[in-house]
Structures are given as C-alpha cells and as structure tokens.
C-alpha cells in the first residue's frame, strides 16, 4: 500500500508549523507519530496535499511540574508518559492510562498530542483528561488558549481545535488517588469502555471513553456517589447516546460502562 501523493514539510518550530498550517489550509495535515494518519493515508481514506511533520520540534516533549500541575508536552510519547517517574509519582492514573494504549511499538511512537487531536471516540487519554480537569494548551497564529477537556472533545473525531491551531501541551492537576480501567476490544485493543476515576478529598470525578461519540464526564455518577459504588455507577450512561458496533451493542456497552465505573470507584484508595 502506498498513500496518494503529498508534499512533506518538516517544521522546526511551533511558529513555522503554524505558518505552514495557515498557508496550506484544509489541505494540510499535521503528523507527529503518524500511527493514526499514515494507515488512513495508505488506505487512501485520507489524501492530504501537504503533511507537516511536527514530530521533531524541540521543546514539545518534556514533562514538567508546575505548582499543582504537571505540564506534558504534546510530543511526549505514550511510553515516555507511562514510564516517567514524575508522572508515576504525581499522577499515576495517567501513567496507567498511557501504558494501556495499543502495544509497545505504538506507545514508542504515538504521542499524547496526536492522540488528543485525533480524538478517536475509543481513545484512552480522554477519560483521564476529563476526570482530572486537565487543560489542553493550544496555539494558533492568533495566539494561545487553554481548553478544558469538556470543551475540547466535541464529537466523533471532533475537537475544539481550530484548523489553524496545534496542541502544545497538556496541563493536568496532580492527583494521587486515581485509576483507569479498560475493557479492550479484542482486535483493535481500543477501549470498548474505559473509565478513569479520581478521588480528590471527599469528591470523585469520573471520565468515560469508548461509550459515546466522544468521551464524557459522568456527572450523574459523581452527584450520586455517596460511598456506594454500585448504586452510583448505575448512572454511568445517564443522558448519553451510547455507541453500538459489531462487537458491542449499545445495551451491552452501557452495561460495561456501569461495571467499569463501579470497578474503578471500588479500586480507588
């Protein structure tokens, strides 16, 4: 297989990448790891005229502490996040999530920025992004902005990211008590259901992925939770249009969402 013809440009800075995006418009596609884009291009499901490589832009692959937050560069690989001592120490749920993505090879190449921008409805990160109240820091030619998870994920593969914007970093509040549990699709290993639960003081927060056309915060569970995981998890899909496919009907997926919410809640320390 071989993609349709395109022009490849390697960007050496964020500003260069943004200028290129502006110049080439809708015909351009950013590439970081490429594990979602390149197969689609080979299958010719996607035929961008220009591919802008942001994978080697310096400064986008660091993991830093900033007060109560961790700031994770968009180009950090899943592997880097899964094995980072800081992440494991301060936000283990994120390391756990990163470790559950794909397989070793995919984790070595795929990036958190790429994954979030791609916004696969069954991707793993969005659950923890939502549950942890993380912010996606993006930059466009008109400047920078910071988008909350609930605003960022809008639909199937749809995000708040403007066509001339790119993700620079993810800012996530540290959380010591969190868990991500996933029911993997036996073929793709994507999340049929993935649940991130975080406990902060008395409150809990729940992010669910794989269930609907985009990841969501299970507010109904959070409201209902009074220490009884089972009862609260009954609300996991309240008001949600649950997806259905050949492997899992919406009825079964709803059931799994409840089971994994309950399990995640019960696993919290």
């Amino acid at each position, binding site marked *: 297989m071989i993609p349709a013809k395109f022009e490849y440009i390697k960007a050496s800075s964020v500003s260069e990448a943004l200028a290129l995006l502006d110049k080439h418009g809708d015909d351009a596609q950013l590439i970081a790891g490429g594990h979602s884009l390149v197969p689609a291009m*080979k299958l010719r499901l996607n035929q961008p005229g220009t*591919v802008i490589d942001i994978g080697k832009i310096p400064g986008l692959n660091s993991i830093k502490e900033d007060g109560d937050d961790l700031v994770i560069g968009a180009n950090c690989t899943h*592997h880097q996040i899964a094995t980072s001592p800081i992440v494991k120490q301060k936000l283990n749920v994120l390391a756990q999530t990163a470790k559950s993505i794909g397989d*070793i090879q995919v984790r070595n*190449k795929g990036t958190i920025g790429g994954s979030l921008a791609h916004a696969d409805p069954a991707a793993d990160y969005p659950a923890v992004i939502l549950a942890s109240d993380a912010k996606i820091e993006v930059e466009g030619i008109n400047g920078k902005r910071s988008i909350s998870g609930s605003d960022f994920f809008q639909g199937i593969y749809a995000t708040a990211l403007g066509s001339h914007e790119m993700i620079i970093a993810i800012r996530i509040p540290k959380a010591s008590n969190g868990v991500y549990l996933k029911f993997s699709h036996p073929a793709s290993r994507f999340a049929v259901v993935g649940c991130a639960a975080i406990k902060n003081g008395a409150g809990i927060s729940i992010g669910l992925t794989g269930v609907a056309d985009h990841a969501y915060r299970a507010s109904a569970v959070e409201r209902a939770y009074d220490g009884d995981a089972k009862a609260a998890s009954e609300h996991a899909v309240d008001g949600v249009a649950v997806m259905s496919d050949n492997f899992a009907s919406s009825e079964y997926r709803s059931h799994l969402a409840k089971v994994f919410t309950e399990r995640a809640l019960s696993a919290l320390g």
Partner: protein
Amino acid sequence: MQIKVSVNGKEHISDVVPMMSLASYLREVLLLTGTHIGCDTSSCGACTITLDGKAVKSCTILAVQADGSEITTIEGLAKNGEMHPLQSAFKENHGLQCGFCTPGMIMTASGLLDENPNPSEDEIRHGLEGNFCRCTGYHNIVKSIQHAAESMK
C-alpha cells in the same frame, strides 16, 4: 527528499519520495527484506524494527520521518557473526515456523528485554500484544524470550 539514516551501523544517504514508508525504504532501497510487511497498517507487527533504540512498526512511519535516526533491523542483530541471544533462543526453542512474523517478534522482544531484562510470563505476553503469529500459538515464542532473558543475564 534526501534523508540520512544509520542502518545496522552503516550510514545511508538516499533520495526518497515522501509517500514511502520506512518499511518499504528498508526493503526496496536498502534491500533489507528481513523486515516484513503483513498488514501495512501497524497492526500485525511483522515490520517491527528498532528506531533510536525503541521498537517501532516501520510500516506506519514515513521514511522521511526517520531522517537522522539510527535503525536496527533483523539483519543487524547478530554482531561479529555471533547470533543475538534472542535469535539463538528462537531457534533452540522452536519459536518460529513459517518465519514471516519472526523478525518482528525478535525485534519487539529485543526492545522488551532492553527495558525489562526480567520479564514475567505475563509481561512477555503483554509485550507481544502488537505482534501476530498465526503458526506457533505463541507458546514457543514466549519460551524463547524467557530463555533469551535468562541467557542474557
């Protein structure tokens, strides 16, 4: 576009079209056909190589993305005529049958053992999540990796 890569310790400067995957580059330009293409969409793992020390699937990396990288393929694993312990272990333990997935399996295992020299059976099995084998039922592949880990101590 011109790219410069070091493959199995040897530097190559090549002109490639951006459409070319790294797997195709290795196979068609450098004639290193030990890197196999089974699905071409990063699911089966037959094309696994190490790129800057990390196991990756070369079918979904563009050759131009690999510019400036150091690459090891199955052909570069044996050093000075001496098989890598993984290669010997795969032969000793019948870790292969048709041989098609084998280079990818060995390269994945090499990445796995670099990071975790003492993997449990479970860690090995999860470590092979990205590689299909249709012949062996994985039984002897897992055994091979266990034995290689043992012999590399």
